[in-house]
C-alpha cells in the first residue's frame, strides 16, 4: 500500500486514541464511566447504536456477499424497524427509567438473583467469544492482504480499541462511534462514486447486467423455514432477533442507557429504524457494483492472496492452465456484457444476454475449480468472498481513498469491539463483582476494577482472535450455542413486563426455552436460525406464564419467604 494510504490509517488510529483519552475527564464515577451520567443526545446514541451493529464483517463480508449472491440478504433486516418501535414503548422506558447499569440488573429487581446471574453469564459467554471473532475476521483479511503476521493485524485493531475504551469509558466509545460511522459511510460512498465514474457502461446498463445474473432479486416470498433469507423470515424471525439484540443484549442496551432522557433513547433507536435498511442496501449495492465492474476489468482468479500464492507454489502447472482458461473465457464474457449494454433492440438484447449468461456460468465453474484447489492445498475453507472488496479497494481506488477505506474497515471493527468490551466490563463488574464479591466499595475502587475488566476482556478477545484459525471449530460451537439463548433471553424480558409473573416462572422458562432451541438445532438442523429466536421466546413466555400461574395458586412467595 502507498505510504499516503498508510499515513491516513496511522492518523485515524492516533486520532481515535487521543480523542478517547480527551473524553476521559468526565468519567471519574461509575455512572460516568458506564452510562456517561445519562448525558448524551439522541443522535450521538443513535449513531453509536448503528456503529456498534455495523462491524468489519459488514464492511468486507457483506459487499462480498452482494457481489456473489446479490441483494437478497436485505430481507434479514425487514424486522428491524418494527422491533425498534416496539422497544421504544416497552423495554426502553423500563430500562432507562429504572436507573440500572445493565439489562440483567433489571431482572433481579423484577424477579430474582439467579435469573439475573444466568442471563448475565450467558451474555459474557457469547459476547466474550464474539468479541474475538469480530477482531479475527478483519484481522485475517488484513494479514493476508498486507502479508503481515495475524498477531500484528489483531494488535492493529485491538490495542487502540482497548486503550480508548479503558481510559474513556462509554463516553469515549460513543463519540468514537460517531466519527467512525461518518468515516464508514464516507468510505462506502467514495467507492460508489469511483464505480460510477470508472464503469465502462451506464448505471442503467450496469443494473441490467447485475439483474440478468439474479443479483437484484431482493425478495423471496416463500414461507420456507429452511431458508434463512426470505421475506417472512426477515419480518417475523428478524423482528424477534432484533428485539432480542437491541432489547436485551448489553452491548446495545448500554448505548441507550447513556441517553439524557427516555425520549432521546427512543429517538436513538428510531434512527436505526429509518436508516438501517438504506445503509445495508448501500453496502450490498457496492458489492453488486464491484461485480459488474469486474465484468470489464479482469479480477484475480482467487481473491485471497495467501491462498493464491499457496496454490501457485504447490500446484503451479494446474493453476496456470486454469488461469489461462479463465483469461480466455473472461475476454469472451466481457465482450458479451458489452453486447448486452449496446443491444439496439429487445431481440438482439435477449440473444446477447443468453450468450453472456453462458459465459458467466463458465467463469463460475472455473472459479469453483480454483476454490476447490485452494481448499485442498491449504486445508482451510476459502472464504474468498471476504477478500473481494479489500482487493478492489487497494487496486482500483485512487491513492488516499484506498487508505480511507482501510481506515473505514478498522473503524467498523473498532466501533463494534469497543462497545462489546465496554459492555463485557460493565456486566462483569455490576452483575458479578459488585453483586457477589464486593457489594460495598467506593466508586474509585469500582472504577479501577472496571478499567481492569475492560483490559482483561480486550486481551482475551485479542488472544481468541490470534488463535482464531486453531480455535475455529470451538468459536463456531460457541457462536451456535449463543443463538440457542438469544430468543430465550428475550422471552425472560417479555415475562418481566407481564404483571404477576414470578422468578421461578422466568428461570425455569428460560431453561425450557434454551432446551427447546437446542433440541430444534440438533434434531431439526434444517430450520433456519432466524426462527430459533421465535421458538425460544415463545417457549419461555408460555412455560413462564404456566409456572407463574401455578405459583400464584400455591402462593409461592409466602413459601419462599418462609
Amino acid at each position: 500500500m502507498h505510504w499516503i494510504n498508510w499515513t491516513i490509517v496511522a492518523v485515524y488510529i492516533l486520532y481515535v486514541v487521543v480523542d478517547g483519552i480527551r473524553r476521559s475527564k468526565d468519567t471519574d464515577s461509575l455512572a460516568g464511566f458506564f452510562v456517561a451520567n445519562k448525558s448524551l443526545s439522541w443522535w450521538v446514541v443513535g449513531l453509536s447504536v448503528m456503529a456498534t451493529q455495523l462491524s468489519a464483517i459488514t464492511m468486507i463480508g457483506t459487499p462480498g456477499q452482494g457481489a456473489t449472491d446479490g441483494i437478497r440478504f436485505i430481507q434479514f433486516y425487514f424486522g428491524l424497524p418494527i422491533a425498534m418501535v416496539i422497544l421504544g414503548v416497552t423495554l426502553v422506558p423500563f430500562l432507562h427509567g429504572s436507573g440500572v447499569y445493565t439489562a440483567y440488573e433489571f431482572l433481579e429487581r423484577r424477579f430474582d438473583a439467579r435469573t439475573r446471574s444466568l442471563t448475565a453469564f450467558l451474555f459474557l459467554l457469547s459476547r466474550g467469544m464474539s468479541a474475538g471473532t469480530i477482531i479475527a475476521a478483519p484481522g485475517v483479511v488484513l494479514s493476508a492482504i498486507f502479508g503481515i503476521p495475524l498477531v500484528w493485524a489483531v494488535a492493529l485493531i485491538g490495542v487502540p480499541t482497548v486503550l480508548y475504551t479503558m481510559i474513556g469509558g462509554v463516553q469515549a466509545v460513543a463519540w468514537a462511534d460517531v466519527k467512525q460511522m461518518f468515516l464508514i459511510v464516507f468510505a462506502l460512498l467514495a467507492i460508489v462514486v469511483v464505480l460510477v465514474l470508472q464503469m465502462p457502461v451506464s448505471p442503467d446498463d450496469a443494473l441490467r447486467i447485475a439483474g440478468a445474473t439474479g443479483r437484484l432479486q431482493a425478495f423471496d416470498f416463500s414461507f420456507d423455514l429452511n431458508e434463512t433469507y426470505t421475506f417472512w423470515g426477515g419480518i417475523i424471525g428478524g423482528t424477534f432477533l432484533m428485539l432480542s439484540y437491541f432489547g436485551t443484549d448489553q452491548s446495545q442496551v448500554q448505548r441507550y442507557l447513556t441517553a439524557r432522557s427516555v425520549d432521546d433513547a427512543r429517538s436513538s433507536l428510531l434512527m436505526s429504524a429509518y436508516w438501517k435498511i438504506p445503509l445495508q442496501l448501500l453496502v450490498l449495492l457496492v458489492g453488486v457494483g464491484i461485480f459488474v465492474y469486474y465484468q470489464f476489468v479482469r479480477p484475480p482468479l482467487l481473491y485471497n492472496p495467501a491462498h493464491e500464492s499457496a496454490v501457485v507454489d504447490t500446484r503451479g502447472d494446474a493453476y496456470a492452465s486454469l488461469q489461462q482458461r479463465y483469461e480466455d473465457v473472461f475476454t469472451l464474457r466481457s465482450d458479451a456484457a458489452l453486447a448486452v449494454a449496446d443491444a439496439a433492440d429487445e431481440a438482439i438484447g435477449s440473444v446477447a444476454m443468453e450468450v453472456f449468461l453462458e459465459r458467466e456460468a463458465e467463469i463460475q465453474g472455473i472459479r469453483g475449480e480454483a476454490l476447490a484447489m485452494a481448499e485442498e492445498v491449504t486445508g482451510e475453507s476459502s472464504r474468498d468472498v471476504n477478500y473481494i472488496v479489500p482487493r478492489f479497494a487497494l487496486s482500483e481506488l485512487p491513492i488516499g481513498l484506498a487508505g480511507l477505506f482501510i481506515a473505514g474497515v478498522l473503524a467498523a471493527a473498532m466501533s463494534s469491539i469497543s462497545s462489546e468490551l465496554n459492555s463485557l466490563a460493565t456486566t462483569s463488574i455490576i452483575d458479578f463483582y459488585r453483586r457477589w464479591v464486593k457489594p460495598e466499595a467506593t466508586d474509585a475502587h469500582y472504577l479501577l476494577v472496571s478499567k481492569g475488566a475492560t483490559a482483561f476482556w480486550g486481551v482475551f478477545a485479542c488472544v481468541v482472535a490470534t488463535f482464531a484459525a486453531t480455535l475455529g471449530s470451538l468459536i463456531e460451537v460457541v457462536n451456535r450455542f449463543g443463538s440457542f439463548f438469544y430468543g430465550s433471553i428475550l422471552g425472560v424480558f417479555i415475562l418481566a413486563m407481564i404483571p404477576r409473573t414470578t422468578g421461578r416462572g422466568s428461570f425455569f422458562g428460560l431453561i425450557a426455552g434454551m432446551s427447546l432451541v437446542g433440541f430444534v438445532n440438533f434434531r431439526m438442523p434444517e430450520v433456519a436460525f432466524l426462527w430459533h429466536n421465535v421458538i425460544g421466546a415463545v417457549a419461555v413466555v408460555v412455560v413462564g406464564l404456566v409456572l407463574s400461574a401455578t405459583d400464584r395458586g400455591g402462593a409461592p412467595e409466602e413459601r419462599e419467604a418462609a
Partner: protein
Amino acid sequence: MSQKSTPTRAEARARFRRTLIQVLLVQLVAIAALAALQLRYGL
C-alpha cells in the same frame, strides 16, 4: 415557570401509533423501491 407534564396513557398510545405508522410508511417506501428495482432489472 411551566412544568413539563407526564404524557397520559392515551397520549402515549397516540404517539406510539404515529411513530409506528411513520416507520412502517418509510419501510413500505424502501420495500417498494426494492420491488421496483427487482421488476425493472430482475429476471
